[in-house]
């Protein structure tokens, strides 16, 4: 499996990964735009609207029946946050041509359909159709509202707002429900045209071989966009600051504790691999310091983990606990954070963590969806790292570099989602 990386036109890159092991072909188009409060909603609706219908298949049901005929092919849209960039992602997945019962060219057809959806949507009098916009507005607004259903996700989003107030990082990737409801077809159409003009684009083709006709169709499509001028997408590293605390009460049984840390290390900083390894040592594996101590030794929780966002340079530690144990859990987490920074871990623990991370990187190439996610996360890079390259960087990190990385961690926020009627405030 070798990665072919070609620039189709300025800021439009096509990555091709021919791989005959898979029975599924996958074409992913990532359109990267700055995440701003003014544009987040009108851009967020686009992947859903564009994959709902197109000029060639204006009727949703007719389109879906066409996809069923193509062996259950699926085209879908979603939005991801990559640092402080909004990634609008369109994906087509289908069976590889060799499994078609009647010799159809399934992968090329699906890729061509995705291209049609992006450049030739179903418009009426030059704007998106009102009924399509209304359906996708309602669905998107419900997705945003449903954030509260999943308490871990909700608590994470609230902690991000607490840690990074007034920064693009705290803008939800879909935006606000009330602003979604206010979108108009004209506004959304203007956003679509802007995205075609200004987005940095990554097209990832995963199939048995290359799909040159698809590459050419996308190249022609972007070359035909008038006034195309990609805008830079940048993520501002979080500055260290005094910790802020917030307790929110809701009708829940279990508290969700989220602690945010600034690391001072992000993007292309040389210490990023060491920071990744340090964070994994703290709470990234089943035998991490947090799991060994907060869960196994003190029986305070079912889960306790840490995650590093290397683009923003922040770490979040998460756990679900009884309210009576929240303060104790926080203290123990801080104690484990100090253990990493003070070098109070064994060489064996460090090597176990490194081994687990390296095997995870080695496994990325065995799952088509994981490969897609791997490259979308690096969609702004002209030369994205392969999992093997990242693995080698982790292998080269020293114990001293891990300790030095952890010394940079500074607590920035403590957020607690707690049951109504309780008395503990963090």
């Amino acid at each position, binding site marked *: 499996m070798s990665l072919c990386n070609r620039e189709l036109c300025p800021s439009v890159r096509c990555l091709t990964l021919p791989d005959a092991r898979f029975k599924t072909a996958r074409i992913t188009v990532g359109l990267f735009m700055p995440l701003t409060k003014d544009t987040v909603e009108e851009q967020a609706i686009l992947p859903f609207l564009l994959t709902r219908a197109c000029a060639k298949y204006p009727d949703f049901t007719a389109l879906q029946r066409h996809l069923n005929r193509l062996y259950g092919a699926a085209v879908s849209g979603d939005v991801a946050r990559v640092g402080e960039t909004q990634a609008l992602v369109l994906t087509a997945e289908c069976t590889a041509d060799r499994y078609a019962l009647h010799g159809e060219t399934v992968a090329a057809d699906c890729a061509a359909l995705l291209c049609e959806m992006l450049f030739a949507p179903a418009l009426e009098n030059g704007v998106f159709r009102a009924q399509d916009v209304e359906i996708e507005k309602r669905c998107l607004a419900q997705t945003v509202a449903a954030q509260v259903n999943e308490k871990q996700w909700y608590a994470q989003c609230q902690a991000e707002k607490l840690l990074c107030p007034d920064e693009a990082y705290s803008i939800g990737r879909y935006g606000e429900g009330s602003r979604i409801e206010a979108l108009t077809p004209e506004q959304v159409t203007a956003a679509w045209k802007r995205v075609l003009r200004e987005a940095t684009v990554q097209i990832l083709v995963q199939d048995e071989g290359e799909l040159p006709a698809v590459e050419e169709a996308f190249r022609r499509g972007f070359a035909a966009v008038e006034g195309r001028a990609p805008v830079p997408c940048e993520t501002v590293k979080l500055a260290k600051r005094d910790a802020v605390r917030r307790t929110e009460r809701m009708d829940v049984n279990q508290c969700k504790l989220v602690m945010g840390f600034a690391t001072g290390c992000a993007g292309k900083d040389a210490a990023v691999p060491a920071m990744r390894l340090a964070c994994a040592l703290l709470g990234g594996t089943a035998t991490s310091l947090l799991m060994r101590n907060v869960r*196994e030794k003190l029986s305070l929780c079912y889960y306790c983990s840490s995650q590093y966002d290397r683009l923003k340079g922040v770490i979040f530690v998460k756990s679900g606990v009884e309210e009576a144990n929240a303060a104790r859990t926080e203290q123990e987490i801080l104690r484990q954070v100090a253990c990493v920074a003070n070098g109070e871990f064994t060489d064996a623990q460090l090597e176990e963590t490194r081994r687990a991370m390296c*095997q995870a990187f080695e496994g990325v190439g065995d799952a088509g969806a994981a490969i897609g996610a791997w490259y979308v996360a690096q969609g702004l890079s002209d030369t994205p790292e392969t999992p093997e390259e990242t693995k080698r960087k982790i292998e080269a990190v020293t114990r001293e570099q891990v300790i030095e990385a952890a010394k940079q961690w500074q607590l920035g926020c403590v957020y607690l989602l707690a049951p109504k009627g309780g008395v503990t405030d963090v």
Partner: protein
Amino acid sequence: MCKWQAVSNARLGETYYHRRHSSGLPLYVWPKEGFRTTYAVFLTKYGAIDNAFVENGETTVLPAGIAHYLEHKLFENEECDAFDRYAETGANANAYTSFDHTAYLFSCTQNTDESLGVLLDFVQAPYFTAQTVEKERGIIGQEIRMGEDSPSRQVFCNLMKALYHHHPVSIDIAGTVDSIAEITPELLYRCYERFYHVNNMALAVAGDISLEQVDRLADAWLKPTDKTAPVRAAVDEPTACVQPYIEEKMEVATPLFNLGYKVPMNTSEGLPDEPARGVAAAAVLEEILGGHASPLYAQLMEEGLINASFDVSYWTGPGFACWMMGGESDDPQAVCAAFKAEVARLQREGIDPDVFEESRNAVYGRMISQTDSAENCGDLLVDGWLCGRDAFSILDEVATLDIQSVYDRLRHDFDERTCALSCVIPNQTEEGVSR
């Protein structure tokens, strides 16, 4: 020694192998050329529905959640935790308890022999003390609390309570904080002895693995037994459901709903011996009833009654089978009415042959994609063993399925007298508003 039997599928170009080890354990191996990942599952036919057993003529009723508790505790032995041993190999290990089985698994790209050794060893070496069992109560208590705050889990669990009178599928897999308080080391040992032995278990390995590796490790680690596999007692479950409607208030934005149709079981002993053809027909019927290409999906979307969370699925296990239709809606009753009307229309008018062919094509394509990863292949082997089927059988049945088989399911499975609706509604809602 039993020789490896190859099971090949020309459509997929895939082959897996199985044999019974001299210890008695069924072994399944699916080598995946070119893959670096190995995925292994060691499982027992012991799950949450096994809530009682008879020994020397005496029935022991088990506390709800004990199979899941046992899963947690098995990772610990006298010297160390199995996760510590996996940490040395670098494998990513986990376990889960379902209604009808408990599985211990790992995936890795290196040190496969060592990881497989850890798996086969710790699952066969229980070690429970009052102290270690007590320590786990707080951890599992928090897992239960987490589940109680999950609306999607609650809407499903409540539906099972509304559908089933006696079948233990209506009991939460993890139990309750009160029920797990009754669990003791002695009880865990009794369950272990009953359900964890090679005649009630299987090993499935897929990915970067050879038959020789599995032979060698099975010989080294497996412990033979003279115990026989326990037989699940039939449950005398009435056809009718318990209650037609069940509701819970939670912190949610939009009501969640799940409409269930309880399917009459054809087997008196309640085993999951549904023929592959029936499962294939159900998969195609799911697509016809609620797939994105269905007229119902488009209608409900246009009327503003559903969003992308809408789903229709068939679910079956030992002694139970049901259809579920669910998602989020401001008006679950209206969605249910539309669904019932669509089922009635199709029962009356029959299924359009073009729609049948397209739906069958879609299911066929998705099943092909299912064999793309070591994890999926391993899980197919597990399902095959649990249901007594060849892992490729459902795909083969889909490829040759006829419209009548699907129509028969439609006629047989959907009876409004056996259905119940479960809703989770926003806690600010006044009583009955969403009904």
